[in-house]
């Protein structure tokens, strides 16, 4: 039993099922991020936890209490909305204490709680202002203050940073992470931004088409994606997926991929069980940062393969240089140190960290487990 249990839950509008048998158990103090493209059902799931959408079948429990049909205000949850949803006619202070007032908390206690939260979020000087007079970042803080003041069991965040500009978004991201570390609250956070998901979460649920594609720690999701969708959705630039054929050489399974001039190159797998796929086609997944120049290769890796291929384009991005090439008929991106000496049109010796490579079944698109 977890702190928040989503148990075999589905959601249907009429005959259209938008969430299929979702099973997630969240422990106390966890930071769960629901991530996925638009329309994947992540916000619907969050609204179901909040009680704003009905549960079609299955169960949602908080602290072992069944929440199906329980009014949102009785679930002891708080929610931060994408638009912040601050009451425009009330001051910041009234916004923060409105929930307490509705729950019948006496005024002196409300004032005390308000000042504590305002101090924590550094919005004390804003308490008498109206939301219309605040900047985006300040509104965001007030919205979090409104959630914090209730001292809820579970915090729900619905894409809270997507209305902020890029710099502020990064700052607020850190801020939210600090808040979680200091307060140890249980958080369910919805976003479509995979970087937010990676940086904030203790666990991620990657969703697509109403299914949870994979549930795991950021590291698991990144290194061992369950299928091609997860592999390409998480990470920027996306994981390279290259058609390859499995060949055996010296008793080790190898990925045979075609280079820019249709000549073949063999990259040895670290995964011994791929021997069973001998002669068959697979899809080889390689993260951009695992293709480097030879000097930049990971020294700790036990399996660095080398290949020579032609560079199509180089894109220096300051901290890194992105290099694109043709592999298996696909555009493949490598992420190199900024001082790697690369030129477009050059034939270049690449180092591929095959320890990190993953293989997918081209039919089911699932990862071939080691």
């Amino acid at each position, binding site marked *: 039993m977890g702190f928040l249990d989503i148990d075999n839950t589905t959601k249907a509008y009429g005959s259209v099922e938008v969430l299929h048998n979702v099973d997630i158990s969240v422990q106390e103090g966890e930071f769960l991020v629901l991530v996925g493209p638009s329309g994947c059902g992540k916000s619907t799931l969050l609204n179901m936890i909040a009680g704003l959408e009905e549960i079609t079948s299955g169960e949602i429990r908080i602290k072992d209490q069944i929440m199906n049909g329980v009014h*949102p205000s009785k679930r002891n*949850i*708080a*929610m931060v909305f994408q638009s912040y*949803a601050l*009451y425009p*006619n009330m001051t910041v202070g009234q916004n923060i204490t409105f*929930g307490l007032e509705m729950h019948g908390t006496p005024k002196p206690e409300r004032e005390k709680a308000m000042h504590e939260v305002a101090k924590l979020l550094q919005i004390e000087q804003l308490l008498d202002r109206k939301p219309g007079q605040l900047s985006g970042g300040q509104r965001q803080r007030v919205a979090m203050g*409104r959630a914090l003041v209730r001292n809820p069991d579970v915090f729900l965040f619905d894409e809270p940073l997507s209305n902020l500009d890029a710099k502020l978004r990064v700052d607020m991201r850190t801020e939210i992470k600090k808040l979680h570390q200091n307060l140890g609250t249980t958080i369910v956070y919805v976003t479509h931004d995979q970087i937010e998901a990676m940086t904030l979460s203790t666990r991620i649920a990657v969703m697509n088409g109403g299914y949870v594609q994979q549930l795991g720690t950021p590291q698991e999701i990144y290194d061992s994606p369950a299928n091609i969708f997860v592999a390409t959705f998480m990470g920027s630039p996306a994981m390279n997926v290259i058609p390859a054929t499995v060949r055996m050489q010296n008793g080790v399974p190898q990925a045979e991929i075609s280079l820019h001039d249709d000549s073949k190159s063999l990259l040895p797998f670290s995964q011994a069980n791929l021997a069973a796929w001998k002669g068959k086609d697979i899809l080889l997944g390689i993260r951009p940062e695992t293709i480097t120049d030879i000097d930049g290769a990971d020294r700790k890796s036990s399996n660095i393969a080398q290949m020579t291929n032609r560079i199509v384009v180089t894109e220096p991005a300051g901290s890194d240089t992105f290099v694109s090439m043709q592999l298996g008929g696909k555009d493949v991106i490598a992420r190199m140190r900024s001082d790697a000496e690369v030129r477009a049109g050059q034939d270049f010796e690449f180092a591929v960290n095959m320890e990190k490579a993953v293989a997918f079944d081209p039919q089911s698109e699932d990862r071939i487990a080691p």
Partner: protein
Amino acid sequence: MSVASQDTAIRTGRVTRTLIYVVLILFALFYMLPLYVMVVNSVKPLSEITGGGMMNLPREFTLEPWFKAWSSAQIGVEPTGLSPYFWNSIKMVVPAVAISTVLGALNGYVLTKWRFKYDTIIFGLMLFACFIPFQIVLIPMARMLGLMGLAGTTWGLALVHVVYGIGFTTLYFRNYYAVFPTELIRAAQIDGAGFFQIFWRILLPSSGPIAVVSIIWQFTNIWNDFLFGASFAGADSQPMTVALNNLVQASHGVKEYNVHFAGAILAAMPTLLVYIVAGRYFVRGLMAGSVKG
């Protein structure tokens, strides 16, 4: 390529502009003419009017016609002036406007934020009320008022206006609330506010502009209504419009045009006042939601 002008107004030459202003001023004068005639003649003694020269300024200024119209003119059989009927109208207009506006706001709230099956059909049917001609409902309405024991009373008249007004007020508020962010309602729900708490604390305080539109619209229509007043009011509940008609249409004695003019202005005064006080919100409210502000 020249830099685009920041000014969105069409640029015109001086001659064109002068021409436009002259035409506009002429039109304005033309529109003001009836009011001028009414005001000027309401402060003249009757002899000056019957002597011709309707457009002339008064040679002898008097407020006597105003006092007479208000308190002693012959209305029907009683020499009461318009004042009791003025209060009749107030007693009818204030509750009718208030109730229809509040009900419209509630309807708008439910139709946009507490959606239910077939709500658009219900809204469509309510809209239909805006297009029903008054004459069609006269007889059924009279029967209904009789059954409810409200025939010939000010309350009965107010009820008729409430029923007729709900279609319009619902339309206004529904369209206004349709663009009101639903996340605010959800936030309030999570905060523990109930149906009416959300309405009073969150929605109504943000409804100023549309409430003004609704109040002006309802006030003007109800105050100016003649047909329902003439059909459903009893002798002691007749509104101002009906009384004014009785004053002007009196078939005996001398036609006191100056008193008629003064009475007509008195009857029009409240709607004018409402426009002057709240008019600038009217346009703002009508435009609300069309442009992101």
